[in-house]
């Protein structure tokens, strides 16, 4: 660093620790609540020390035997649905975006920019805004209660297409030329050179899209009419404020912690690539 100011270093740590405290506090509370009994939680103020019911609550959540969990779809099953859904969405988005970015950057054809724009506009058309008609389409295609229905409608991705386009534009032209000299055709170049070069962008996008897929709520609620196809976020919401039963916050919080683990692992384990991907492609 340029200057040797000691108190500035102390201040840096102080600010960061405070930031971490504020940011992590809700998560800590969630964890603590997941180790107590429902009644303990209701006694304001709730204790901030972990209680003794951790195993009990998590078992209940996982097996769906807790009062709060609605029965025959245990959290384990829902986590699996979430996992498959999130993976398909993330991988699918990346795959089709790679292809379309490749087409848009490396070819010249009529309406090229029109398609780019068309894709770009979808970036900000969230499902909530057109949920009814979209649902009708999915239903008439017979995709309710299928992984296809849970994933394909969410699989178009302006973000990914845009990011890949930006990245492809930074790939030196000479690489294409070298590949052409080596006798590689477009798809061969795509497979052998472009995709391997895009790994950091792919990793960054994987994180973003996995989390997007994992955190879906409204869409699965609509397209799944069978409990066996419920993802876990719905599992959490279903335990809260439904009907007349009191919320079993301990089980809710245990489920919330469980539901958080896979995406958090993805974020944390891939953060190096994530950050790198963000820098490399300049957004």
């Amino acid at each position, binding site marked *: 660093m340029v200057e040797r100011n000691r108190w500035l270093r102390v201040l840096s740590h102080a600010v960061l620790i405070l930031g971490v405290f504020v940011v992590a506090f809700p998560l800590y509370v969630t964890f603590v609540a997941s180790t107590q009994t429902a009644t303990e939680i209701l006694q304001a103020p709730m204790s901030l020390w972990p209680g003794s019911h951790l195993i009990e609550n998590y078992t209940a959540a996982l097996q769906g035997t807790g009062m709060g969990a609605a029965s025959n779809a245990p959290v384990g099953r829902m986590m699996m649905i979430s996992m498959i859904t999130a993976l398909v969405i993330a991988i699918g988005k990346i795959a089709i975006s790679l292809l379309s970015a490749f087409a848009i950057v490396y070819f010249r054809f009529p309406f090229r920019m029109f398609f780019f724009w068309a894709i770009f506009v979808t970036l900000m058309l969230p499902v909530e805004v057109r949920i009814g008609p979209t649902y009708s389409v999915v239903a008439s295609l017979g995709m309710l209660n299928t992984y296809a229905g849970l994933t394909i409608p969410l699989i178009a991705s302006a973000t990914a297409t845009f990011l890949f386009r930006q990245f492809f534009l930074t790939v*030196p032209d*000479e*690489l294409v*030329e*070298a*590949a*052409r*000299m*080596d*006798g*590689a055709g477009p798809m*061969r170049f795509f497979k*052998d*050179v472009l995709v*391997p*070069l895009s*790994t950091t962008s792919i990793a960054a996008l994987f994180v973003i899209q996995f989390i997007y897929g994992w955190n879906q709520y409204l869409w699965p609620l609509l397209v799944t009419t069978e409990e066996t196809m419920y993802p876990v976020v719905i599992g959490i919401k279903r335990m809260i404020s439904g009907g007349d039963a009191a919320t079993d916050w301990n089980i809710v919080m245990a489920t919330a912690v469980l539901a958080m683990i896979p995406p958090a692992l993805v974020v944390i384990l891939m953060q190096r690539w994530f950050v790198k991907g963000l820098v490399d492609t300049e957004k």
Partner: protein
Amino acid sequence: MASISLRDVVKRYRTGKTELQVIHSVNAEIAHGEFIVIVGPSGCGKSTLLRMVAGLEEISSGEISIGERVVNELEPAERDIAMVFQNYALYPHMTVFDNMAYGLKIKKVPIDEIKQRVDKAAGILELGHLLARKPRELSGGQRQRVAMGRAIVRQPQVFLFDEPLSNLDAKLRAQTRLEIQKLHRELGITSLFVTHDQVEAMTLAQRMIVMNAGNMEQFGTPEEVYSRPATTFVASFIGSPPMNLLKHAPGGRPGSLLGIRPEHLDMGTSGWALQVETVELLGAERLVHARLGDEQLIIRTHEDQGAPEIGSTIHVLPREDRLHWFDAETGKRQ
């Protein structure tokens, strides 16, 4: 090995509605196994010319043949050429081995043969111990050698080089120059080498093409180009420091420019009287910047001769047999 011939080669770029001609009817016959350097300032069209030979740019008009075949319509891969790029264009995610083998793999050369050819090229270029590395783990010079290796393994009829040394530092550049020469001697493959560095051009070329603004100004051996520059452009572009070009030299002819190289001006006690402006020491020699009337001159002397004082007047004698005369209008040699 093959000859190359360029016949009335023209390149135009169309950007929007405007058309820009960047290569003006170039003609050249290059023999089997020759080492040709294309030299010229930035933007003069060297790369464009080379890339037309490579098949990376379409030829607007004219004809290019390699060997007996007119290649105008052929894909780069079908022209049996190999190219070394300025920034090497190595595949960053492949090992050195894979970089060299890639073209062969695509051609479906049997893996044993690929191994053998890569090993041989690696041997020539002393890359044997680096085959498992990725390009980012190599130094600039090593990368450059890999780029050459990638070209060599292809055993092409023609080598194309687009400023392959410009990313190297001075020392490495000199060394790699020697290696390229050696390689060419050994393999004898027809080569086109682009550079904007005249020292590189002079040392490497068997014959050189000097280009300026899309025109071929001269095509000849380095000696010819140096001692009988065809135009004032060539005269001032080749040679460092450049040839002095004087409008009003003592004994000059009207409508002509007199050219004399800095090393052909001998300091003495008689001759032109000049005012010394600055003096630069370059190891074994000195460059004296001086003024003759309102014209600027450079004189190159040996360090032994002692440094003239700044501001003093010196006398120099141009060697009579080394004078060059150019038309002041067209710049053509007279």
